[in-house]
């Protein structure tokens, strides 16, 4: 075990027993594996993303690390401390930001809420007041500091949640779906805020999210979690390299018909073609091809041979969103079979 790590898990496993209705009392419980031998190592100062679809086990992992759920097996260390044996000491070192709005006393102001939580961390009264004022300034809620929180917008509540997560100046901050419910602009604003103001180079931040853009914008490294298993860990670049089994290419074409272009799917290496007619009457083709194949020049040659004109041709970088779909569903977003989930294990970065 490495004491210098902010978070470390070894073969961390969580199984939930589920009893269904009255019959479950007599028939015994069914079991669901939420986490399956998860190994992670997060360094101090790092912003680490836990990525995965709904039900992947992200929240369960965050809750185990924050002592709210007990693991079924394996080991989870936070700041070098076992979360099951030293839960109170672990809780002193962590902060949590929920994406759920219902975690505040809404009839109280953000200042009163923060003062209350500061007391639970046993901060001395004067120090607590100073800390609360500082945090309210940090999250930009000075003007609304004494307004009951039921008057707050979702974005303001999220800022308040960040302030609460920082009350004890934690070594490790967990953000569980921090932009849930926010409009795109507010989400962008919040991510920028986390990157610029919350991450201080000393504090580790663990972000659980299902949004690629969020991970891409925020995180130094990410782990893909699916069905309770970590499938990939690495920097965004490493993940991109490992996941990018396809290349995308955009073409604008004239002089050939829709059906002729659809036949391009038969060109070796092409995995999918999506067509769209532009206002100019030309056809736009979003081409997917196996990485490293000769599909793109072969397609262009085929169009020209058929008497068509290629007005533009440009490679497009696949978004993490698209790669995520490939990794999780084992197929591209166009439902073309590509890479299976099991194959992903073979491309573990580290």
């Amino acid at each position, binding site marked *: 075990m490495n004491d210098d790590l902010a978070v470390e898990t070894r073969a961390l496993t*969580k199984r*939930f*027993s589920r009893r269904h209705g009255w019959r479950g009392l007599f028939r015994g419980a069914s079991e669901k594996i*939420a986490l399956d031998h998860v190994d992670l190592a997060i360094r101090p100062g790092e912003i680490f993303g836990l990525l995965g679809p709904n039900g992947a086990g992200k929240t*369960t992992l965050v*809750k185990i690390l*924050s*002592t*709210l*759920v*007990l693991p079924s097996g394996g080991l989870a260390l936070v700041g070098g401390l076992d979360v099951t044996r030293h839960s*109170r*000491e672990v*809780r*002193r070192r*962590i902060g*949590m930001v*929920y994406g*759920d709005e*219902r*975690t*505040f*006393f809404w*009839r*109280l102001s953000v200042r*009163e809420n923060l*003062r*209350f*939580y500061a*007391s*639970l*961390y*046993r901060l001395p*009264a004067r120090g*607590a007041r100073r800390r609360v004022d500082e945090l309210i300034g940090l999250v930009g809620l000075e003007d609304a500091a004494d307004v*009951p929180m039921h008057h707050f917008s979702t974005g303001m509540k999220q800022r308040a949640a960040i302030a*609460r997560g920082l009350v*004890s100046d934690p070594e490790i901050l967990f953000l569980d779906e921090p932009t849930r419910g926010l409009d795109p602009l507010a989400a962008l604003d919040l991510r920028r805020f986390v990157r610029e103001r919350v991450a201080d180079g000393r504090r580790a931040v663990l972000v659980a999210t299902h949004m690629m853009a969020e991970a891409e914008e925020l995180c130094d490294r990410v782990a893909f979690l699916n069905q309770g298993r970590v499938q990939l860990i690495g920097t965004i670049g490493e993940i991109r390299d490992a996941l990018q089994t396809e290349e995308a290419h955009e073409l604008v074409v004239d002089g050939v018909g829709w059906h002729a272009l659809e036949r391009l799917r038969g060109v070796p290496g092409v995995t999918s073609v999506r067509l769209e007619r532009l206002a100019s009457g030309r056809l736009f083709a979003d081409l997917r091809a196996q990485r490293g194949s000769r599909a793109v020049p072969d397609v262009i040659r085929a169009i020209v041979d058929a008497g068509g004109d290629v007005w533009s041709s440009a490679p497009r970088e696949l978004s993490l969103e698209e790669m995520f779909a490939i990794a999780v569903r084992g197929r591209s977003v166009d439902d073309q079979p590509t890479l299976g989930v099991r194959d992903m294990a073979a491309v573990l970065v580290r």
Partner: protein
Amino acid sequence: MSVVGAFLRRDFLIWSSYRLAVFWQVLGVLLLGGLVYFVGVTLGDGQPIGGRRSASFIAFAFSGIAITDVVMQAMYSVPQAIRENQKAGTLEPMLLTPIGAIALLLSSSAFKFALALGRMLCYFAVGWVLLGFWHDTNPGAVLIVLVPGVAVFAALGSLSAAFVVLVKQGDPVLIAYAAVTAMLSGVFFPIDALPAWVQPLSALVPLTYVLAGARAGLDGAPISQVLASAFLLAALAAVLLPLGVVACNWAVDRAKAEGSLGQY
């Protein structure tokens, strides 16, 4: 600020944010007090109950209501606070702080208990100042039964809180127990008024000893006269309190294992 102080401050701020909160509290005390008073007058108050000096119906009922309110709040406020925080979504964030589960349970219930103490003092003040009751009160004798009595009911409340943490709903056993307790222990009427076959059951209800001891203290009885009730209640508290603590800790651990701590 201490943890209990923080909870008291939080709950006071929430309570006082409802504009009519104080009004309803005062109105509740006045209406119930007035009801008891006029029933007493109608019954021809002044006739001693059970041969005690100030044990008129009004004094009897006032003391019964006030003391029962306090011990019942000791029992109800813990599971109620847990349930309210479950529903509000604030239980998990509080359990994420270094505060222990038991400290959280007791602190969460402190304000409601303090309100009940305030109501009790109101009833006593009205009885003492306006109606001339309890001028010979022996506060030591009252406290020596009231404190362990509150501890017994707080322990029962902790057991109920464990139920709420696990099952995510109010404890129906507690509600039934409270109703039976109020009926058998002599809150509004002396136990003698119950059918003869029911009267022995009163001896099984802790509130009976709290009320009998506290009323004796209010009438000026020496401590020695209430010691037996005090010892009995203290012994019961000594058994039930550790059980309550163990049950609560077990329930929280169980909810953590199930992953249901934040559910409602």
